[in-house]
Every structure is written in structure tokens, then in C-alpha cells.
């Protein structure tokens, strides 16, 4: 397609769907040349970013995240918003290929002209998810999407990575039999800005209400991250689009309060700093491992450690010494 970053940038700023999609491909690529080009593009886009409401959504598989986004996103487009959805799909098979079926559960939103949905195979490292998703989010903002939703499955660590790049982090739960808190990590509750019990419909309503009380009690024991916000527990039915409006109001309320208290800017600045550190570490690591001398020395040292010929400390020292030169 294009070769220069400027071409991509003008396409994105003009709101061209194809260019945005191509840019995301560059961002997601494992080739250094693509990543470099992507970085240039994102750099030039930066002045046009930051104006969206950034929402992260997590939940166990089957909690109804995609269905929720279908109904939530459709509502937002009806209100005049333009919605970008980034779905990180962890389902890669042994061979490394993935089946990306998210859009089959976002049927209406997928064909909506005011929406852009991009499912991504998360093959590769977790750090990858962090970098790629953040840059993709910025590109979507520059393309004029004023709500960006990131869907990630609540297993592993991707949810904390996502939490560190959004304004509002929503944890979707379902009422199940037995211990409500089972299977979800305390860490997730700590970063949640709201907990939503989904599938509160049909003969499930009472169970959802019960679960709501249990989560409220659990949240009481946690120290809220901000003095201006104690995360609420809400119920909704994504399938029947009930309770969705309230959640949007909650997100807007949160934003208002944070802007008023100044925390909004602080949080975004902190996230930017965090990101820089992350990139720094990520870059250092890549730089280190791609250093030819390291690459030459490392395999031998690994073997030596296994055969107890050298201590891990001594081996690390020798490798690090290479970098000092």
C-alpha cells in the first residue's frame, strides 16, 4: 500500500477505514521494519489522540463480554458516538493459528458504519498485547472514534495490562452457583472501576441480585484507589439490553468527577509514564537479546549452568559485562 508514514497519517485523519486497518496490521506485525514504520505513524498521530473515552472490559470466558459490547456499542452509536472495539482473542491453537469469532457475537455493531471492530490474535507475548493495543487505541482516536472499548479475557495477566491504559475498567461477572468470588483474582477487583453482573434476566435475576450484594460486600473490604470513587456493583442483561444505559451514565459520572478533581489528567499522565517505562524495558530486552555477542555467548552459558559449570550469577555478570563496553 503506502510506504511513507505521512500517507498513513493523512488517511487515518481523513477517517479512512482501510488505512486505519492497515496501520493496525503494521502495529501488530512482528517485523521490526513494520514496527518502526508504525511507531513513526503513531508519533505523528499523537497530537490528534487522547480525546476518547477509553474503556476496558474483562471477564471470564462466556461472561458475555462480546454480547455486552454489541448492545453497549450499539446504544452509543445511537447517541451519536463513534465506537472502536479492540478484541484480544487468546484462542490460538497448537499450530499458532487462531479462530477469531468475536464479530459473530457483535452482529449489529459489526455492520454499523459508526463502529470499527478489530479482533486480534494475541499470539506472541503479553508485552506485545500491551504495546500493540495501546498504539492501536491511539490510531483509532486519531481516526475520530470517541469511545474506544478494549475486550480482553480475564485469564492470565492481560487484564491488568489493559487496566493500565484505559480511563474506566469494567469487570463483567456472572452469577454462578456456589462461591461467587471463586475464580476471579483479587487483583482484578483492585483495578476495577465498576463490577457488572451480566445475564440478569429470566430466571437468573434473583441470583444476579444476590451476587451483587456479595460483590458489594467484597469491595467494601478493599481500599478504593481514589477518594472520589468507590466502584459500584451493577447488574445488566446484555442480551435484552437492560441496565446498559446506567452503566454508560456511571462511566460519564466517573469521568466528570475525575476531571473535576484533576485525577483524570494525572491518571493519563501516569499511564503515559508507565508506558514509557514499559517501552524502555521492552526495548532494552529486545536490544540485549538481539546483540550478536550475547546471542553467541548465551547458548553456551545456558548449557554450563545446566551442567553446574558456572553459577547463574556469574553467567549473568558475564553477559551484562558485554553491554558495558
Amino acid at each position, binding site marked *: 500500500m503506502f510506504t511513507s508514514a505521512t500517507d498513513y497519517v493523512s488517511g487515518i485523519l481523513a477517517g479512512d*477505514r482501510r488505512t486505519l486497518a492497515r496501520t493496525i496490521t503494521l502495529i501488530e506485525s512482528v517485523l521490526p521494519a513494520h514496527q518502526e514504520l508504525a511507531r513513526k505513524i503513531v508519533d505523528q498521530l499523537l497530537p490528534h489522540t487522547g480525546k476518547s473515552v477509553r474503556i476496558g472490559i474483562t471477564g471470564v470466558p462466556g461472561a458475555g463480554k462480546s454480547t455486552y459490547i454489541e448492545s453497549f456499542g450499539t446504544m452509543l452509536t445511537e447517541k451519536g458516538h463513534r465506537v472502536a472495539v479492540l478484541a484480544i482473542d487468546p484462542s490460538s491453537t497448537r499450530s499458532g493459528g487462531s479462530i477469531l*469469532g468475536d464479530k*459473530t*457475537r457483535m452482529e449489529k455493531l459489526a455492520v454499523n458504519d459508526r463502529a470499527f471492530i478489530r479482533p486480534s490474535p494475541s499470539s506472541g507475548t503479553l508485552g506485545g498485547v500491551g504495546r500493540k493495543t495501546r498504539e492501536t487505541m491511539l490510531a483509532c482516536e486519531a481516526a475520530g472514534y470517541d469511545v474506544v472499548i478494549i475486550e480482553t479475557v480475564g485469564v492470565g495477566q492481560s487484564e491488568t495490562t489493559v487496566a493500565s491504559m484505559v480511563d474506566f475498567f469494567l469487570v463483567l461477572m456472572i452469577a454462578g452457583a456456589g462461591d461467587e468470588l471463586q475464580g476471579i483474582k483479587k487483583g482484578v477487583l483492585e483495578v476495577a472501576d465498576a463490577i457488572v453482573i451480566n445475564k440478569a434476566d429470566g430466571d437468573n435475576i434473583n441470583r444476579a441480585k444476590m451476587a451483587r450484594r456479595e460483590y458489594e460486600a467484597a469491595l467494601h473490604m478493599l481500599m478504593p484507589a481514589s477518594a472520589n470513587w468507590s466502584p459500584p456493583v451493577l447488574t445488566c442483561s446484555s442480551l435484552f439490553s437492560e441496565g446498559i444505559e446506567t452503566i454508560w451514565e456511571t462511566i460519564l459520572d466517573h469521568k466528570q468527577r475525575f476531571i473535576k478533581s484533576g485525577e483524570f489528567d494525572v491518571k493519563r499522565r501516569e499511564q503515559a509514564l508507565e508506558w514509557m517505562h514499559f517501552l524502555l524495558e521492552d526495548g532494552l530486552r529486545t536490544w540485549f537479546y538481539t546483540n550478536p555477542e550475547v546471542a553467541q555467548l548465551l547458548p553456551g552459558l545456558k548449557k554450563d549452568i545446566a551442567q553446574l559449570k558456572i553459577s547463574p550469577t556469574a553467567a549473568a555478570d558475564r553477559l551484562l559485562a558485554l553491554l558495558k563496553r
Partner: protein
Amino acid sequence: MSQHPDYTKWQALAEKQMKGKSIDTLNWNTPEGITVKPLYTAEDVAGLDSVNTLPGMAPYVRGPMATMYAGRPWTIRQYAGFSTAKESNAFYHKALAAGQKGLSVAFDLATHRGYDSDHPRVAGDIGKAGVAIDSVEDMKILFDGIPLDKMSVSMTMNGAVIPILAGYIVAAEEQGVSHDQLSGTIQNDILKEYLTRNTYIYPPTPSMRIISDIMSFCSKNMPKYNTISISGYHMMEAGANSVLQTAFTLADGVEYVKAAIKSGMDVDEFAPRLSFFFGIGMNFFMDIAMLRAARFLWHRLMSQFNPKNVKSSMLRTHCQTSGWSLTEQDPYNNVIRTTLEAMSAVLGGTQSLHTNSFDEAIGLPTDFSARIARNTQIIIQEESQVCNVIDPLGGSYYIEALTKEIIDEAQKIIDEIESLGGMAKAIESGMPKMRIEESAARKQARIDQGSDVIVGVNKYKLADETIDFEVREVPATVRDEQIARIEQIKASRDKDLVAKALADLTEAAKNGGNLLEAALPAVRARATVGEISDAMESVFGRFVATTRCISGAYSSECEAKPDVINAIKQRTTKFLESQGRRPRLLVTKMGQDGHDRGFKVVASAYADLGFDVDISPMFQTPAEAAKMAIENDVHVVGASSLAAGHKSLIPALIEELKKLGGQEIIVVAGGVIPPVDYDFLFEAGVAAVFGPGTPIPDSADRTLSLLEKKYLS
């Protein structure tokens, strides 16, 4: 009974002939999970309660009627897939003159899904795979000159059952035929639609209510009419093996019975009018045994409802030969396949039969191919003398043992469904769909590696395929003709009357009342199929399926031939290394054809081969599919077509891709596409066409080659 006195002698003899190998090595493990031995003896059937019974008497293993074909042979019932009411009507007149006894109507996909022919979403579907019906005027053309008080009519309709059944009733009224004179069957089996074919409109709960309403209306007003035909056919076509087909079909049946009882009916009021529809494949003895087992099980399952009428637990069935077993390659072989399958249905004791035309993997049946198909049955009935003896295989050690195996295996699955809370709940859980898809992926893998032989496809292939017979196509004018007639009707009818009737129907949907009864005034007032469907949709909503895909089943069945698979995996990895990502493929199904087996098998197999595969929602328009391809930035779009929509939908997709700047996205097509259309598609910009029976490694290989040529050279 104990072992045959000379059994060990026979065993020694056999093993000697096998040069010392154990006879167990001759065992055959069927896809159903049954181990079939090389020899059956009296010992295998000793003491079985399904053996040595009598026809026409419980448990009906040997047939529902006392005299079976010795008294009267099965009904030859050929289903016609013509595009317009007029053409279909002409076909019916010809077929009746040629010895056919009942009529069978297939509808186009737009009608199935409750859309009028002028709806923009269905532009590519009008007249494809069946007749387009928009109003009672079309129904009247369809049945012109056919006395509906004498002719039994079977209609394959599940989604838009209310407007279609009401249309049939009103067409009869206007012929002067009263409700109670009508005889025939409406398929009306919605549960299986959620499992396989996806031609539903509303969510399961209101759909089940519609079924109860129809049963209740008909039991009062149309006593000769069969209100439901519980169908396993589509499950088989979707890849279910014979045990799955039996279990899921009967479990659907139990669910309908429960729903009717719940709505206040007495079991004997409707159960005698339940009929079944099984698909018969190439596994000759298996499917004979399947029909026998199904009758036994249905009797057993119905006993829980304590029917007084013996007919309530008697399984009567229609059968159809398999469409999946038909090949595009060397297609005259299909006549032989269909003959074998027909024999299997007959020896299994079917009540009526449809035999497929040999060209169905290529195009719509022609007069010629339809004649051969019909004559296949006539020759069995009138030349072969198989009708003279009832259940001629009854007592065969093998058939009886196999019948028993299917009974036991299917019962296990039925119990599992029961423990999930019945079939509706089981469908919600996704269990039956997953089982069918797994069975399909395994079957595809067996075919691809040649362990299931298909002559002309994976063995004894022709070097040079030429088609020397006519291939029929849907005329492009069908849609225009239908739209013109809709406009005419809308201009001439009483608008207020229509509006009132539709409002009453919506009211019945909301607050109770029999929906079929409430639809009749709307049909009489010339409301269209689409309007009637919408009037209910405004209350019920339109159902959206969740598409889930299994992975791993394909490659696990391929372990026997890892070379081909590994070679492709290596190439996808090489592509990743050079392009920064895996080859990314969008598989899409445009139009209203809801058969999703093919496209799901492809999706899961390609992922196993190292592609990133995006799946589109069902029923997409070309513009919607293009948007998805652009946003997901795929390298290739694979468009699957099974219902003759390819000539309009696929070129439209390519146009839409161009509009969005995606001209470099490669488009390949797969499914039932007649070879005569290949050039047309290539000219429209399609890079490759994969006909039915293309092994997945072949299509993956060719798709990868296209990609490698474009990106790696």
C-alpha cells in the same frame, strides 16, 4: 444362547487364512463409535428385546404398519426446487402424470427467513433453492389446477411457518376446499434449525409457542394434517453420524411433545400426527439399522407420556438420500449412490422417500435428472420385487445386533440431553451443535486423507472432467417478477383492512391467542409473508445465533497423514516470518443460506493449519462482508455458497471491496458452484473456486500459493 459349537473352529480357519493375524484386526470402528465385527451369529442377538417382534405392533422395530410394502409401497415424494410458483406448478402437473403421489414444496431462502422478495437484504436469494412466495397470490399460482382436497402436500418450512401455512389454508379456501379436507405435512421443526440450518426467524421460546399454536389449531380444524416433521436429515447433512442423528432427532421430538402437553393438549390429540424425516447416507447397513432403532426408541420414549392411542408412539418417517454424499466429480456415479441409499431407506422401512438428482452438487435438478431420480424409486418398487416381504432383513444377526447397538448408543446421548434439562436447554448449552461439528470435522479429515473413500473424489479420479448434460440455472428475472407482483398486490388491496389484521396479529403475539388463527385474516386481506413475519417480530425479536467453532478435531483425525499437514504448517510459518503475521482469512457466508457446516469445518481446519481465521456472522450482505474484511485487514476472503447465490453475491462482494479500497484482497469461492460458472467467477475477479469435495489441504495449498505468489515473490 451360547457360542456356536463350531465357532472356535471357524476362528482357527479364519486366522489361518489371515496368516496368523487375529480376526479382531478385521473389526471396523464406525464413526458412531461402534465396533463392527466381521461375523455375527445367533449368539449376538440372543435375548434381545428388539428381536423377533412383529410389524405394526409395539415396539415397531419391523415397521409401523402391519403389512408394510407388501400391502402398499412407500410414497414416492419428490421435492421440487423451482424458483417461481408458475414453474413449480408446471413441474407438479408433470410429476403427477409420471406416477408421483404427493407434492413437496421447497421454498427459497428469503421466504424461509420471512423476508419479501423486495427486501434489500435478500437480493441474492430470490428463487434460489426453492420457490419464492410473497403472498397468497403466489400460493394460488403454485397450486393452480391441483385439487387440495385430494392431494397431500408437504412443505419444507420452519421459519416462516405461520404466513406459509396460513397461505396454504387460504389458497385452499379460495379453491373451495375446507380446512378439514387438507392433508399433508409441514416440517415445522424449529429446534434443528438452531442446530444446523439456521433458517429460523425468532428466538427459541416464541418459536416453540408458534409450534404449539399450530398443533393446537390443526388438531381441531385439520385432523388429516401432520403438523410437524421432526427432522434429522439436516443434522446428517451437517455431518452428524447415524447415532447422533437418531438421538438428537428423537430428543427434539420429545421436546415438542412436552411443549404441546404443557400448552394444555392431550398427548393423543397430536402425537399420532407427528412424523419424522431422516437422512440416509452411504453407510448401507448402518442406516437400515438406524431406522429400525429409531422406531424402537420412539416407542420407548413415548411411553413416559402414557398415550392411550397406539399411534401416538408409532414412528412414521419420510426419508431422503444424502446430498452430502453427492459429488461434483464424475457425477453420474451419484445415480448409483442414490440407488444404494434408497435401498437402505426401503429396507429400513420408510413411509415415503425423496431421491436426490445426480446433478445436485452442480446445479438445480433438470427435467432429465429429476426423471432419473424418480425412476430410481419406481424401479425399486415395480421391478426389483423387494416389496413383497415385510422387513426382509429382520432376524439378520448383523442387522439386529447393529440395531441394538444404535439403540443403546443413542439412548446414552438422549439421557445426557435429559440431564441437561431437555433438548431446548441442551441446544442453549451448545452441546448438540458441538457434537455435530466435531463429527463433521472428523469426517472431512477422513475423506481428505482417503480413509473414507469417495470414488472420483479421493480415489479413481478422472483426469479430465467434462459435463455432457444440461445444467439448470435460476433465471435472473425471478426477483423482478416477484417485486412486480408485490407492488401490484399492495396497490390493489384494502390498506385499512391489512393494517387492522396485522395489528391484531401483533396483539395476539403480545397477549396470547392462537397465532395461526390470527394470521388467517391478514393473509385473506393480502398481507405479504414479510409483513406477517414483521408483525410478530415486533414482539418476538429476530434471533441471532452465537457461532462457536471447535478447533483441533480436524488435525487430530489427520494424525495418520502428518506430512501434508506439516508442509502447510511450515508454509504458514514462513509467511509469518516474512510478512510479520500469519496469513489471515475471512470465511463468510453471504445471503440467507444458513448451512454453516462447510464454512465452520474450513475455519477450524485452516486454523489448525496455521492461518488466522476470521468468521463472519451468518446471513451477511456483500457490503457487510466487505466491511469486515477491510477492518480485520485480511489477505483472503473465502466466500462459501451452497444455494446458488454465488453469481450475484460474490461479484458484489468484489465490487464492495474495491469501493472500500480493498482491491488487493484475494477472493476465493467454495461450495456448490457449477463448473460452468467458474469462468464467470474468474472474470468477476475470483482467484480460485473450490468445488464440493475439494480436500481441505488442497484448497489450503492453492490459497497459500496465491498468497505466496502475491507476497513472497
